[in-house]
């Protein structure tokens, strides 16, 4: 399957991710309210927001793990919302994903985990694949760890191994879910460096979902800030920093905004019954 985006624009302006009016509902609850954003070729786009802002939901929809109620998602020039499982299976080999937990297969060694996409999608001979695997482990500073099981690695090493597996097929587009969550600052900073190295050395477009402000500002070319299922801003780092939107500033300054619940909704939530105001 071709993965070219529409031509006619300078390469760095080409949009490799386009989200338009994405609406996501779980039952009666609307989680994303018409989210629109885009990611340009070769940039690191950070999707940022507090807990419950909808950033993980957005990522799951970008990865076709869930279907939206309405809206469009285009990845690498392909409309993905309408894809069935088989079309997605054929398409998704052009993507790399590093999950928050690593999602390494616990029964396989690090090397086998990294080799898996190559073994499944290519006809390369075993020795070539092993060289490629060692190269990628080298990139993420895990050379020599290929024979260990995931249970024998630290949290930071698991994330690095997940990166190695995500980039083994040299994807054009890499998604990272909370890469520095739960790591000490030094390890987190080294993962940020790794993301920047992947962008600069391999020319990847990288979408990072995170709630870590320091990490976000260190790696982002542009930032999309989500709040309660709405995009507050999607702009360059400087534009986000200088935004006059109070909710963006609350997030940047780590100010807690107390939720004032609607009394009827609050009662309904407590009792499981629907109440209506009496005049």
């Amino acid at each position: 399957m071709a993965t070219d985006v529409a031509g006619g624009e300078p390469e760095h302006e080409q949009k490799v991710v386009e989200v338009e009016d994405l609406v996501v509902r779980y039952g009666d609850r609307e989680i994303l309210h018409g989210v629109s954003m885009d990611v340009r070729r070769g940039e690191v786009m950070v999707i940022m927001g507090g807990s419950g802002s909808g950033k993980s939901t957005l990522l799951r929809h970008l990865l076709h793990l869930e279907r939206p109620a309405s809206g469009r998602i285009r990845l690498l020039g392909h409309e993905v919302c309408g894809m069935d499982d088989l079309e997605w299976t054929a398409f998704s080999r052009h993507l790399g994903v590093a999950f928050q937990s690593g999602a390494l297969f616990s029964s396989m060694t690090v090397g086998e985990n990294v080799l898996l996409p190559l073994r499944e999608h290519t006809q390369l001979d075993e020795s070539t694949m092993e060289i490629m695997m060692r190269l990628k482990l080298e990139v993420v500073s895990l050379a020599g760890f290929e024979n260990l099981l995931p249970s024998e690695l630290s949290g930071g090493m698991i994330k690095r191994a997940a990166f190695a597996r995500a980039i083994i097929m040299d994807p054009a587009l890499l998604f990272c879910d909370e890469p520095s969550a739960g790591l000490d600052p030094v390890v987190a900073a080294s993962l940020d460096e790794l993301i920047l190295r992947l962008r600069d050395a391999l020319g990847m477009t990288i979408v990072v979902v995170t709630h870590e402000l320091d990490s976000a500002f260190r790696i982002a070319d542009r930032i999309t800030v989500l709040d309660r299922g709405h995009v507050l801003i999607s702009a360059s780092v400087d534009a986000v920093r200088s935004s006059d939107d109070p909710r963006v500033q609350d997030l940047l300054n780590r100010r807690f905004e107390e939720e004032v619940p609607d009394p009827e909704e609050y009662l309904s939530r407590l009792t499981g019954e629907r109440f209506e105001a009496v005049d």
Partner: protein
Amino acid sequence: MAAPEDRAVARPIAALGRRVALGLDAVGYGASLLGQSTYWLAVGRRKRQPVRAAPVAREMMSVGVSAIPIVSVLAGTIGVMLALQGIDALEPFGAQDQVTFGVALSITREFAPLITGIIVAGRSGAALAARLGTMQINNEIDALSVMGIHPVRYLVVPSLLALIVMVPALSIWADGLALGAAGLYVTSDLGMTFPAYLDGVRAALEPGDVIHGVAKAAIFGALIALVAVVNGSQVRGGAEGVGRATTHSVVQSITLIVLADLIFVFAATR
């Protein structure tokens, strides 16, 4: 707003409705898994997603070869038990030497496939549900999906194939073991020679009896795989959810095996 007494009536009905809907959903999902598995077996190679022999062989080793000791012990025990019961039941009629007939038919048509199915459900079905459940909560199944590896093709088909092949194979093994163990008891108790016992078994059995047992065992294998996958892939709630799925998988597999056995026997004999 509903009155409290109305709610007291409505809640159990709603709960029952939800359970029925969930049950139907699981049956539909199981059928869909079977359809998808057949699809990947048929066109996987053309789609550059072949079902590879190595994982199928690995699963066969795990569900089949590794189960030989426990299947042997139980099959042998049941063979001796049937011989004991048969001789005891026929003694008042002075027809103890007819025990060979009953033992041969009951083992090949019923006990060997049923016991094998139950052992494999408890052993491999539970393990499969636990493995898939753990993969589910660790995002490993999502990871497969976004790597362009269809989870049904990669995870389900090898287990399904292995169980459909190995449960009948184990059932045939159990036939031999149970008949052999029963023969040892019958010959020692009735003073019959072993070749005479084997002649009796051969005279009692027709190929259709063995095929009856083997066909049932293949159905049991498919049921065990599908029930385990349905339960494992619907795990929510961490380790506790994995434990629940494993228990459900074993209970549902054994229940379905017995029900399928009844339906099969009814269809084959009436």
